[in-house]
């Protein structure tokens, strides 16, 4: 057993618990959200998933006018991709599909769908098609500007050039391919 192997095993032991959770379901950590970026040629899929607290400051169904307004504002921002990501203009990307899962929306047949009373997540995804894929060498995530409670984004990138894990913070919010 050499040094690297020993280190890898050490890493395997220490990193098993948190990553196992991330793989099978949900890690719920306030201040942190996950962003999946998949890219194939000019197709770009971006998925956001994180505790609702990061975006509105509470995790229950809105109880007053102020909370209703904050939730509506947050959803409005996420529905506008230009306020979420800043794609290189030269890539000529256009949004083909966007979906923002509205938390606490009354589903037909389900009286109350808040799931866990104490935890709620916000999920959204965007699908872009870029005419000039060669110019798409990365992009800036502008979420931090709109959601000051969001401190960290764990990014998983999968593309034709390979896969990577990246961590974004308000000061360094650039995703690289």
């Amino acid at each position, binding site marked *: 057993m050499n040094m690297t192997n020993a*280190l*890898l095993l050490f890493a*395997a032991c220490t990193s098993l618990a948190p990553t196992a959770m991330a793989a099978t379901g949900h890690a719920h950590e306030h201040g942190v959200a996950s962003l999946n970026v*998949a890219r194939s040629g000019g197709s770009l899929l971006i998925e956001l998933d994180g505790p609702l607290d990061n975006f509105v400051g509470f995790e229950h169904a809105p109880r007053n006018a102020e909370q209703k307004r904050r939730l509506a504002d947050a959803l409005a921002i996420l529905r506008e991709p230009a306020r979420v990501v800043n794609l290189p203009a030269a890539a000529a990307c256009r949004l083909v599909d966007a979906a923002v899962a509205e938390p606490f929306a009354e589903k037909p047949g389900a009286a109350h769908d808040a799931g866990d009373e104490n935890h709620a997540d916000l999920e959204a995804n965007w699908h872009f098609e870029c005419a000039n894929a060669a110019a798409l060498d990365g992009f800036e995530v502008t979420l931090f500007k709109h959601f000051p409670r969001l401190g960290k984004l764990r990014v998983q990138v999968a593309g034709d050039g390979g896969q990577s894990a990246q961590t974004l913070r308000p000061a360094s919010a650039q995703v690289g391919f």
Partner: protein
Amino acid sequence: MIRLLPLALASLWNRRLTAGLTVIVVALSVSLLLGVERLRNDARESFASTVSRTDLIVGARSGPVQLLLYSVFHIGDATNEVSWPAVQRIAARQEVAWVVPLSLGDSHRGFRVVGTTPDFFRHYRYGDGRRIGFAAGRPFADVFEAVVGAEVAARLGYREGARITLAHGSGEHVAEHGDKPFSVVGVLAPTGTPVDRSVLVSLESIEAIHLDWQGGAPIPGLKIAPEMVRKFDLAPKRVTAALVGLENRAMVFRLQRAINEDTREPLLAILPGVTLDQLWDVVGIGARVLLAVSALVVAVGLAGLVAVMVASLGERRRELAILRALGAGPRDVFFLVAAESVLLTLAGCVLGVALVQVLVFSMAAWLQANYGLAVSPGWPVGREWMLLGAVMLAGLLASLVPALRAYRQSLADGMMVRM
């Protein structure tokens, strides 16, 4: 001032034994620093280049790191197995382009046996998308045919046509599948990945050698001759993991979610590149600690250099006084002593770089053979230059200590009538 350089050299030459020893101390510490940095980089690169163009690795639910390390790098603890129908279900999905199953567990004289399909040779990529090449022979096509990795062939002296037997499990005391020998039909070209240290056979062969086994041991009294195995159903029942490639990479997270949420069997799909990055985030801590320790060793080396230089000043009172008498100012003395220290550091760095080259060159084959680490000799790159620069800067700062002392000493000596 530049005219003092030959004088500094001559003065060092005059004290060549202590100067030489000091250079060796600095060189050893520098080579340790550079060696750790080189190993850190090359290890990361050789791991990163092992899986390429594989979008997902699917295994039984465990940890992503465990699954990656066991299925691809053959290190760490074994993961549970995946049922064959689950693999077929994934292969049947329309977004999936190819699936390469891997079945681990047997060994051959310390090398891993990997059960897979001939698709492995078509789809497995390493480095920047390179395919596996054959040095000789062809892929396995039938039961009891094996393809050996470059290193297996080199170390055990195998060629096409060699007869080998596989062992159950891996370790010192393993039961041999002695009644069912394999013939080597292909030898792979070196890849610098764990494939070099693998014996590849078909999934049907793995089934065949375990037909008369149960619970990890031969069933007493039951012997199925090799020529009889074809009468049995050799379709695989379980595999260890599967490499998955997609038609459209943009679908990778959706497929990952679909597999992870499969209710029929607890599966885990990981993105190998992402998991490797997460792993290196943790390994990186250990590597940085090693680097910090080697930086401390360099500091110790430079402290030794300062001690030698300061100690020599006492012996050199006469030399420096003569210089003063010949018209050298205290600043010239300062520069002379500082230049000597910097020259020693520089010589240490140069010798250190050379030492690393020699070490890497002489150990590359051994590291590759034993640990699969591809380290390459060569000029310092990127961060190694930065480290060397940092050492030189530290040497420059350290040189101020003896130089300032010599400066003050020469001032005082100039005013005192002594000798």
